[in-house]
């Protein structure tokens, strides 16, 4: 069966259960005791054979973490997190001695990824997409490595990059998100386990979509993903991450840090399809998704574009941001956030205009159903040197039912009189007459909601790489199942 066909088949089975990714894989795991302390950090570092500078960096971050207060920005109801009641490292035993090729990987893990619709076997690969898969704490396989390295592109796990490209890692890690930024950033810096590292050399246009698939498998394991993408001068890369986690009654923590750096004339397109387990209808279980994503447009004419489809997680807290440093640089943020049942999302972006003629565009679509709460929170900050800066923001909220909430909280700060900031916002209820019209044409009520909501999100979904747009559309429909009576 062709890879795309297989993926389509996978997608078609999506409707079968409420959360189709809710299986977990039985594997022997290596896991140090619960708790957060220096010993655990040393253990993690040792497991990864890290050089000393990396361990020192982690320990320093831990010191900072201990001093920082918890962030209180978001309009969320976050239960106290007991950092001591969580495992910080877990790897399937069979991965401990790094598999050299895909054939050496535990077939159980391969099966897990196949269930996710991410076939790792080279011959089954989605054509044109290189995948790095992170299973709990370690990177399982990076496909297409050879083809990419011929172009000088580095696409590997961050743990590997620490060893193979220490200069790049030292130079850029923490350069966009300072360790002291806030407590989750510091926590991640102390205990990060794995994630992707990408370097695109000068003048190279990455010919394939690069992709990472994250999966939380082990119980009570926090996942601290760390991703670093550097696009050197005149380069281009498009990257996509997808996320799932099994159903568990307990809450699990995912605190990722993602840093992007775009140099002169470089462009980074970063897409996320986040479908972590959202918890059950009563709000039991689910992932706490506290993510810091930030991109620095360091070079002139550089561009960073974030596209996200957030449908999962019990709590989502993320503000992918752009620091528009280089003159004429551009930042974009396209977001669909769907909350159903008891889910909470507080998401948006920050666009910091520093350079001249910088521009940013924000399109946010929030959909809320059940008893869920969905907040767009965004900051547009135009500094005094940012002559001629431009921002356009459009935030639309759609409500399904009358027990859910949508909130739009824009912060606009401008210290430059040449700049122009436009903001449009709408909130509406799903239109009963539209639903009736669709049903009169034979669509059942869930398909009708899915169709209308997908239409509502179209402006955002069309920014996803083609191969994933279809899956995202299905996901949008599925995540709203049961939202209409």
């Amino acid at each position, binding site marked *: 069966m062709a890879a795309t066909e297989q993926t389509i088949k996978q997608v078609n089975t999506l409707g079968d259960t409420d959360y189709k990714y809710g299986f977990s894989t039985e594997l022997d795991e290596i896991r140090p005791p619960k708790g957060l302390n220096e010993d655990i950090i040393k253990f993690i570092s040792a497991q990864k054979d890290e050089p000393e500078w990396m361990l020192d960096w982690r320990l320093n971050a831990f010191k900072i973490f201990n001093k920082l207060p918890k962030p209180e920005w978001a309009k969320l109801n976050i239960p106290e997190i007991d950092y001591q009641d969580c495992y910080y490292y877990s790897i399937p035993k069979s991965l401990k001695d790094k598999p050299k090729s895909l054939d050496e990987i535990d077939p159980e893990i391969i099966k897990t990824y196949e269930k996710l619709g991410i076939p790792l076997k080279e011959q089954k690969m989605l054509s044109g997409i290189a995948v790095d898969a992170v299973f709990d704490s370690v990177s399982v396989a990076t496909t297409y490595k050879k083809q990419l390295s011929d172009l000088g592109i580095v696409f590997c796990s961050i743990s590997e990059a620490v060893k193979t490209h220490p200069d790049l890692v030292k130079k850029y890690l923490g350069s966009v998100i300072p360790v002291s930024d806030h407590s989750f950033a510091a926590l991640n810096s102390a205990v990060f386990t794995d994630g992707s590292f990408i370097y695109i050399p000068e003048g190279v246009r990455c010919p394939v979509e690069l992709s990472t698939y994250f999966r939380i498998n082990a119980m009570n394991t926090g996942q601290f993903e760390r991703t670093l993408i550097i696009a050197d001068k005149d380069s281009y890369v498009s990257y996509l991450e997808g996320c799932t986690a099994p159903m568990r009654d307990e809450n699990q923590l995912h605190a990722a840090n993602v840093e992007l750096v775009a140099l002169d004339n470089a462009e980074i397109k970063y897409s996320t399809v986040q479908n972590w387990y959202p918890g059950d209808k009563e709000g039991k279980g689910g992932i706490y998704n506290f993510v810091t994503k930030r991109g620095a447009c360091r070079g002139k004419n550089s561009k960073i574009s974030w596209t996200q489809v957030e449908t999962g997680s019990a709590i989502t807290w993320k503000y992918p941001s752009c620091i528009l440093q280089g003159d004429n640089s551009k930042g974009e943020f396209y977001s669909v956030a769907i909350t159903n049942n008891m889910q909470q999302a507080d998401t948006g972006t920050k666009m910091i205009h520093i350079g001249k003629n910088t521009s940013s565009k924000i399109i946010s679509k929030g959909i809320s159903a059940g008893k869920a709460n969905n907040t767009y929170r965004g900051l547009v900050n135009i500094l005094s040197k940012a002559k001629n800066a431009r921002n356009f923001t459009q935030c639309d909220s759609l409500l399904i039912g009358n027990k859910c909430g949508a909130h739009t909280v824009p912060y606009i700060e401008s210290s430059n009189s040449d700049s122009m900031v436009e903001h449009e916002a709408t909130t509406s209820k799903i*239109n009963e*007459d*539209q639903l*009736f*019209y*669709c*049903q*009169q*044409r*034979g*669509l*059942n*009520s869930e*398909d*009708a909601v899915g*169709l*209308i909501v*997908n*239409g*509502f*999100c*179209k*402006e955002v979904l069309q920014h996803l790489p083609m191969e994933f747009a279809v899956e995202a559309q299905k996901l949008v429909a599925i995540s709203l199942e049961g939202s209409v009576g």
Partner: protein
Amino acid sequence: MLEIKNLHVSIEEKKIIKGLNLSINKGEVHALMGPNGSGKSTLSYVLSGKDKYEIDDGTIEYNEKNLLELDVDERANEGLFLAFQYPMEIPGVQTSFFLKTAINSKRKYLGHSEMDALEFAKLMKSKAEELNINTEMLKRDLNVNYSGGEKKKQEILQMSMLSPKMAILDETDSGLDIDALRIVSEGVNKLRSKENSFLVITHYQRLLNYIKPDFVHIIADGRIVKSGDYSLALELEEKGYEEISKSA
């Protein structure tokens, strides 16, 4: 095909349909004419299952089924089609995608496999051409920024692609210029067969020059006050609703 007996309908406590009887057999075309506010659209919504309408009394049988027990989409997939007086705009949904989704919903309901992309494209193209619809238009969002006439044509396109057993046309003629009226009527006439029935709701006798009905009914204040053949439409044109209702 369709048997409405003693139908009483109210909305928000207000009685709108007050004892309506109507029987439509396979292959027949019935015209329903009446002044504004007489309950024509209400009847079309009740037949297609829109909620908020209270059925106070009466029965509706459709193809030996109790129509009132079926959901909106079940009725549609059982071959009941309503061409809306005011078709809805659905932003972000391409017209062609909507058509495909509708067709495949029906096929799924009937236990058939999905129509493949090529077959669908062919069908859409040929039907659109019959109705003089530019296929470029089908790439646009459904009914968004369509003119009144384009929307009505779009309804008829959907109808001809879904080939319903029982089609209700609610004032499809209003907003159409004379050329569009002719084209739309031809589209309807193509679908006429021994198997298919129509309920054509209109204000004007004009449409009935193109779609010759087997029966004409005049509705006033929620009741059918007079029924007859095509000549009744002509009589109505001459005398007006007021007089016809009185003489009934």
